[in-house]
């Protein structure tokens, strides 16, 4: 029996990535990191800023996301996100820029608790990448 399932990552502009030979995906879900294997129960969840790791037959890939939704159903994993970057392709400068923007945001006085939590998460992840 094969242990593979399909993943599709879409952003508003285009279909970002589509793969059929995925064995495991680790997503930064809202309430903690979540590993998804084949025949996982149908689930919908949010993403917080973090790293999506895709283990596939053709190799391992890592992506940085800032937000999004994951849906898993019938061995199809869909990730909808508005900001995603392939860690291999992203430049150092871009990461610095994102970090800077996030740090500015967290220091704003009118920020509410939830978005502060998310921004702090973002900073942590970005720092670990730099």
């Amino acid at each position: 029996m094969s242990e593979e399932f399909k993943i599709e990552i879409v952003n508003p502009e285009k279909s970002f990535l589509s793969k059929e030979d995925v064995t495991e995906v680790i997503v930064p879900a809202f309430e903690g990191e979540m590993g998804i294997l084949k025949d996982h129960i149908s689930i919908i969840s949010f993403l917080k800023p973090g790293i999506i790791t895709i283990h596939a037959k053709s190799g391992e890939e890592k992506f940085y996301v800032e937000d999004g939704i994951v849906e898993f159903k019938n061995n199809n994993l869909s990730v909808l996100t508005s900001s995603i970057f392939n860690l291999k392709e992203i430049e150092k400068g871009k990461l610095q820029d994102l970090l800077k923007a996030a740090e500015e945001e967290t220091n704003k006085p009118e920020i509410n608790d939830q978005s502060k939590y998310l921004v702090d998460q973002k900073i942590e992840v970005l720092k670990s990448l730099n």
Partner: protein
Amino acid sequence: MASLDDLKKRITSVKSTQKITKAMKMVAAAKLKRAQESAEKGRPYSKKMNNIILNLSSGISDKESAPKLLSGTGKEKIYLCVVMTSDRGLCGGFNANIIKKAKSYFAKLDSEGKELKIITVGSKGKDQLKRVYGHKIIESISFKNSKNANYFDAEKVCKVIIEKFEKEEFDVCTIFYNQFKNVITQIPQAQQIIPLNTENNDENKSEDSYEFEPDEEEILSNLLPKNISTQIFKAMLENSASEQGARMSAMDNATRNAGEMVDKLTIQYNRSRQAAITKELIEIISGAESL
């Protein structure tokens, strides 16, 4: 009858107009291809988003506690219409079609005694609506500076709408845009986005129950605003593809008309030239005869 010089001048001016319309047609054709591509690429996202929302909302047990963006405010008094048009003219009936659709909707609302509020996106719509509905326009947004439709702009529009919704400034929100069918056909659309229309989509409903993390309501209340910006973004993409398509066919027509005009004027020019020559000959001959 116009003199030869006048005719010559007119022919040159029509020819240069033709050159301009031809160039505009080519530019529109190139842009159309890009716009069409991005409209097609954007479809999976909005479709997926829609599916997830449908699955979620069919799973919600208690309609009463559902977020207001989904179920509405319970009243249907104030209608907000978001009219999305282009920022540039010279695109045939593109803007006029949207405005026509919107105006007939406004008239219907008026006859039902509902209150109307308008947000215009794109400056052409504002220009056309402000004459009759000027006092109803509460906000005008224009993206003259951004080259292509992008998600960031859509989010800006969405923010404005949601802010107004939270202040209870309206109950129902509808967006107007042109759906791109092909280069010569664009269909003006009215789409209700608040409260979300969940009925006519039975095919996508699944019987599976989902596990949610965090719970359904929190997901929904986070997802719905996103869905609105997605829908607006979709409308923007469709609109920009339609705009280029409409401009292309309008400019094609203009080029053809200019060509016909040049032909007609050239014939007229040649005839009067011939007439002048004949007249001169007659004068010479009759002059010679009288000697």
